[in-house]
Every structure is written in structure tokens, then in C-alpha cells.
């Protein structure tokens, strides 16, 4: 035992040591020099659904293409090094930059006062506008003033989200990928989508079911984000951008991607004025409690989804178990196949198929319904296995005694076997409920804004990942701890005689 303790404390010390030696902030050593020494520029972006910014080449997915890839290569060339992209979820690019994961971030990051409080921005390299997209047959929505009471999709953390929120009365649906809002629009789940023009140009323009409507709104700048203390790198990148602008290379890149328009001429003006064209504003320092209503609503949705899908799992699991153990083929075979398939594939994939896949064959589910069915059907497979174990744990003599008294098999299952099996399975079912509770965060991928999604949206807007994260973790804990106490109590009670 002593030896074990020794080894254990050694491991703790070792991991603590590792933790402290991992560079958490950029070193005082200058990033520009580091890039040159290293021989490549490391830039962060999210290539998942990232067209036309940076995305895998459809002809050769191992290669990234996009206008930002071209731009990064041009910048690297001017620095005398190669460019290397580092993949990171869009929501957390800025935190990752601050942590030191890469030298800069270039991924359609809009220059906003909140972000300027966090990082330095280069001169703008593109002037984006927000383009409203509707279905081809839509006639009522002509511009963003017609959006009151409509369902409008946009990206989490994008400027378009602020524009829509400020309009008031718009039912804003938040997505984390740029493909899904347009899919949902085409399917009729949304009335319109407001997103940056480059995104619309790539995803919406070629889609025959969709069309642009109204003039672009909300002009703003994309800038390259750089860590606060990297003034030298910023200066160098600004120089390079001005050079690329003047030489016409930047224009060429944009023309190649069909992104050049008259608006971009303003880049020259901005470049001439140089320096900080957007004044550093106050950080968004709203007191933390202003987020509570949103978080509590998210928690409410989490509870709703968890309870309803657990109820489905318990009932469906029971039916599957009985079919599997007492049914005849093909019913018993089907039940076994159900369990194996659901346990053998990731829940995430099941949710994607349910929500994004089924519309391909003409079945369109609302996010809430898809979440309920997806989680419920997945957990039914696990509940079924628990029941089966419970039933197998009931001694064989119980069934024989029941049958010998003239009971039919179904009466014996109902009156003698099941009551005993449920007692055996109950602690496991409660534990599964706790697991489902946390797995419910996965449904955020199907546009369901529950607690985890609420967190990632709020945190991406305010960049207050830490304090919001603690609050959200606390909320999950407050909701699941009573369940775990209940499970413990049950287990103790059921350990004893079976009554």
C-alpha cells in the first residue's frame, strides 16, 4: 500500500511538473524572430466548412485552398518563410492564439472592439458585408427590415449575429458551421440567412434554391489577429499587406475567388490613413449576472431534452429487451441488430444522420424532435443491455416456479421476472441517466441551443471562457449531483433483500 502511495504521489508531481513547463503564454522572445528561425509561419484557422476562406481542396483533400491560404502564402513569402496552417475550431481561435498555439489567426475574424481588447489586429485585408439570402420563391423578405418575426440563421460569434439581435424581434438561430444554415434555409427550417458575403458567395450563390436579396449591409473589416505583445510582427504584416495591395496581388487573389468588388477600393484609403482606424473601446465588461437568463434557459432546455429522451430510452429499451429475449426471429434478430448498431456507432453520427441526413429522403425533423429521438434511441440500446443483464441475473428457478404454477410465459415475465430484474438494473439505469444528461450537450451540433451551446455562444462573443465556463460547469453539477446521490441511495437500499 505504501509503495502504491509513493508511486501515486510521484505521478502527481511529475504531471504537475509537466503542466508548469508547458508554455502557456508566448515567451518574451519575439515571435517574428521565432518565425524566421523556425522557417515557417504558423497561422490558425478552421477549415471545417471553411470555404472560400480556407478549406480542403475537393480534388485533393490533403491540400488546403482558399483566398486566405493564398494570402498566407504571399505573406510568408514576403517574410522569407513557408506558411503552415494549424487547424482549430473557429469559436476558440482567439483563445488558442493567446495560449501560443500559433503566430497569428486569419479566418474571417471581424475587427471588433471586444476582440481588440484581447488581441492586436493588422490592417484590414478584406472589407466584408453581410448578405441576406432567402429561398428562390420568397417574395415578402426584401431586406433586413422585413425580418421581424422570421427565423433567421447566422453563425455563432459573427457580426451578423449582433446586427440581427439589434434589429429586435428577429428569431435568431445560431449555427457553428456555415453549411448548415443554408441547408436549413433550403429545407424551409429557416426564412433567411444573414452571413458574410464571402460565405454567401461560395455556399448560397451556386444553390438554385436560394437567392440574394437586398443590398449588402454592415460593412466591416477582416483583420489578422496577433498577440498583444507582438507589435513587431504586426508592423511587418501591415507593411506586407500594403505592399500586396499596391502591387495588385491582393486584388488578383480576390478576383480569383470572385470576391473583388468596389467596396474593396476602400482598403487603399484605410491603408493610407494607416495606424488605428478603429478606436479602442471599453471592453465589454458587463457584470456576469447579465448572462444568467440565457444560461438558465439553456439549462432548462438541457433538462427538457434529458428527461424526455431518458423516458423514451427506458420504454423503448424495455420493448427491445423483451423482443430480444422472448421474441422469435425475425423480431429477436432485429432487436439484437438494433442494439449492436446503436452501440457500435457514435451518437454524433446518429444525430447528424437524423437531422441532416433524413431530409435527403424527405423526412425533416425539428431540432428538438431530432434531439429527443436521437438521444432516446441511442440510450435505449444501453438500457436494453442493462435490463437483459438484470433478467439474466434472476435465477432460472424463478421462471420455472412461475411456469409450474400454470402461468403463461408473458405473465411470468410481467409478474415474477421483471420486478426482480428492474431492481437489479435500477442503479445502472440511474447512472446512465447522469451520463445522458452530459451527453445531451452533443445535440448542440443540430442547432439545439442547450446549456453547452449557450456557453460556447456567450463565451465566443465575450471571450470570457473562464468565468462562464465555471458557471456552466457548476450548473451541470447542480443538476446531476442530486441524481448521483439518488443513485447511491438506491444502490444501498437494493443491496439488501429483494422487497
Amino acid at each position, binding site marked *: 500500500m505504501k509503495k502504491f502511495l509513493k508511486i501515486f504521489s510521484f505521478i502527481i508531481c511529475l504531471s504537475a511538473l509537466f503542466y508548469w513547463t508547458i508554455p502557456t503564454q508566448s515567451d518574451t522572445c519575439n515571435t517574428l524572430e521565432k518565425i524566421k528561425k523556425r522557417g515557417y509561419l504558423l497561422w490558425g484557422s478552421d477549415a471545417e466548412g471553411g470555404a472560400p476562406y480556407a478549406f480542403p481542396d475537393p480534388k485533393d483533400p490533403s491540400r488546403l485552398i482558399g483566398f486566405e491560404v493564398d494570402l498566407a502564402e504571399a505573406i510568408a513569402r514576403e517574410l522569407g518563410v513557408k506558411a503552415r496552417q494549424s487547424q482549430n475550431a473557429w469559436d476558440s481561435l482567439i483563445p488558442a492564439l493567446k495560449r501560443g498555439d500559433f503566430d497569428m489567426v486569419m479566418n474571417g475574424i471581424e475587427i471588433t472592439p471586444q476582440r481588440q481588447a484581447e488581441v492586436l489586429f493588422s490592417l484590414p485585408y478584406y472589407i466584408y458585408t453581410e448578405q441576406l439570402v432567402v429561398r428562390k420563391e420568397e417574395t415578402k423578405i426584401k431586406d433586413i427590415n422585413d425580418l421581424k418575426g422570421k427565423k433567421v440563421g447566422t453563425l455563432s460569434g459573427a457580426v451578423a449575429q449582433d446586427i440581427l439581435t439589434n434589429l429586435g424581434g428577429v428569431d435568431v438561430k445560431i449555427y457553428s458551421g456555415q453549411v448548415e444554415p443554408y441547408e436549413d434555409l433550403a429545407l424551409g427550417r429557416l426564412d433567411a440567412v444573414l452571413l458574410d458575403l464571402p460565405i454567401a458567395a461560395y455556399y448560397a450563390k451556386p444553390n438554385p434554391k436560394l437567392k440574394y436579396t437586398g443590398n449588402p449591409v454592415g460593412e466591416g473589416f477582416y483583420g489578422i489577429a496577433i498577440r498583444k505583445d507582438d507589435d513587431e510582427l504586426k508592423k511587418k504584416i501591415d507593411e506586407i499587406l500594403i505592399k500586396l495591395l499596391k502591387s495588385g496581388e491582393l486584388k488578383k487573389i480576390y478576383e480569383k475567388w470572385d470576391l473583388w468588388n468596389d467596396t474593396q477600393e476602400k482598403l487603399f484609403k484605410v491603408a493610407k490613413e494607416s495606424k488605428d482606424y478603429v478606436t479602442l473601446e471599453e471592453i465589454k465588461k458587463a457584470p456576469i449576472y447579465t448572462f444568467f437568463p440565457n444560461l438558465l434557459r439553456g439549462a432548462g432546455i438541457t433538462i427538457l431534452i434529458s428527461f424526455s429522451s431518458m423516458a423514451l430510452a427506458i420504454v423503448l429499451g424495455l420493448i427491445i429487451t423483451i423482443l430480444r429475449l422472448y421474441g*422469435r426471429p425475425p423480431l429477436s434478430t432485429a432487436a439484437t441488430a438494433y442494439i449492436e448498431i446503436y452501440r457500435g456507432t457514435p451518437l454524433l453520427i446518429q444525430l447528424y444522420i437524423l437531422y441532416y441526413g433524413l431530409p435527403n429522403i424527405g423526412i425533416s425533423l425539428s431540432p428538438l424532435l431530432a434531439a429527443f429521438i436521437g438521444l432516446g434511441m441511442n440510450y435505449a440500446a444501453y438500457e436494453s443491455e442493462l435490463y437483459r443483464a438484470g433478467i439474466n441475473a434472476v*435465477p432460472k*428457478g*424463478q421462471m*420455472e*416456479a*412461475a*411456469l*409450474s*404454477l*400454470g*402461468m*403463461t*410465459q408473458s*405473465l411470468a415475465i410481467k*409478474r*415474477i421476472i421483471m*420486478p*426482480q430484474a428492474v*431492481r437489479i438494473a435500477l442503479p445502472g439505469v440511474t447512472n446512465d441517466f447522469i451520463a445522458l444528461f452530459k451527453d445531451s450537450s452533443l445535440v448542440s451540433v443540430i442547432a439545439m441551443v442547450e446549456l453547452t451551446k449557450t456557453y460556447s455562444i456567450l463565451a465566443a462573443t465575450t471571450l470570457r471562457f473562464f468565468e462562464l465556463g465555471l458557471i456552466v460547469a457548476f450548473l451541470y453539477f447542480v443538476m446531476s449531483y442530486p441524481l448521483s446521490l439518488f443513485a447511491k441511495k438506491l444502490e444501498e437500499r437494493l443491496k439488501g*433483500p*429483494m*422487497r
Partner: protein
Amino acid sequence: MINTVIKVENLHKYYGDHHLFKGINLDIQKGEVVVFIGPSGSGKSTFLRCINGLEYFQEGEIAVNDIELHSINRLRPSKEDMETIRKIRLKVGMVFQQFNLFPHMTVMENIIEAPTRVLGINKNEAVEDAISLLRRINIERKANSYPDELSGGEQQRVAIARALAMKPEAMLFDEPTSSLDPEMVGEVLSVIKDLVEEGMTTLIATHEMGFAREVADRVVVFDKGDIIEIGTPDEIFTNPKTERTRIFLSRILKI
């Protein structure tokens, strides 16, 4: 022939390739007490379980009163076969070595469960019947206890009462005292003896030779799936005809 309650004809049973019963014939008359003895694994328990449909058999016929059950396809008995087996079970009560009381029910609930749910007797009537049965086995005051609060002997007596509550025409006892502590064997055997004296048709598989000798009308000796000898207790115990019976008895009586 009129008085035959249980009739077994040409019974064959296989366990995979193992041919256990090779055509057994046995008739049991109304009110008769037949005790089955023989070494462990000789087939005496399996024989009783076949009569109650808890074991399937591949060839032959078992009849209880007028209900005839022919060989059963082990994998998938048909609906009619299942119903025939159930009808037989309604006529024949069974008591197991391991008692098999329902642990989640009280003694009273154990006894009235089948009469109310299977026979459709109303609950008050079933409770009254149960009380008189419990009085007979002398554990009336444990009616509201759960099985795990009872001694082994008490549990087995309740199991007998539970089977009797279905008012069977015959009772099968499958080694009813084999898992009991020695001091509890007597109370269970005395309940069975009372039953026998009331004229119940009774089949018992047991290792209790003294008891067999005392209550049996006929003793059936099993060995390796064969009936090697049938006779009155006197014939079997004092003057066995076969060498195998003699060896078995000498072994068991020495212990």
C-alpha cells in the same frame, strides 16, 4: 385403467448426443405414492421435470388425466404445445429443491399469486384458502413475512402450500429436502406425509431412504437414465433383485 392419473409411454430424451431416457414406460394410479431413488444424475429429477414440461423430450408421450403431450421440438414448441404443457401444469403441482419462492412477494402474495392471476379466483377467497393452507403447515403467523425472513424449512413448507393452492391432482417433489439443514428435514417431510395420508397422488425424487420406505407404495430405482427396478419398499430395501440396486443402497445406507 380408469384410475391412471399419469401415464408415461416410450419416453426418449437426448441431451445433445447423450441418450438419457431410452423409452421409459410408467403408469401412476390415483392416490398412489411413488418414490424415485438412484444416484445423482441418474435421471430421476429429469423424469419429474419432463412430466411438468420443464424439460423437453424428443420422443414418446406423457398424459395427465386426458391431456396428452407428445414429443416436443426443443427449439420452438408450437403455441398448441405450450398450451398443452400449461394445462398439464395446472393439474400437477411441483416443489423444487431450491424452494424458488418469489423473493419480492410476501408469503401470502406468493400463495395467492397464481390462484388469482391464473385461475381467476377472487382475492378474498384466495386469501382464505391461503390462511387455511398456512394453518395446515403451521406458519400462519408468517403470512406477511418475506421469504428471506424464513428458515429453509419454512420456505419449503410455503412452497408446498403455494403449489397446493392451485388444487392440483398430483404433486411432484424434486428432492425437496436436499438443500435443507438436517434439523429442518423433519418438518418438511411431515408436511408431505400429511399430504400423502390425505390421499394425494405423489411423486417424490429423494435421497431420504427411511422416508421412502415409510410412505412409498412403489419405489422406482433409476440408474443412468434406466429404470432398473420397480417394487414395494419391502422388495426394494430388503430384497433387491438387481446388483446395481444393491450397490446403490449399500453405498447410500452406509453414509
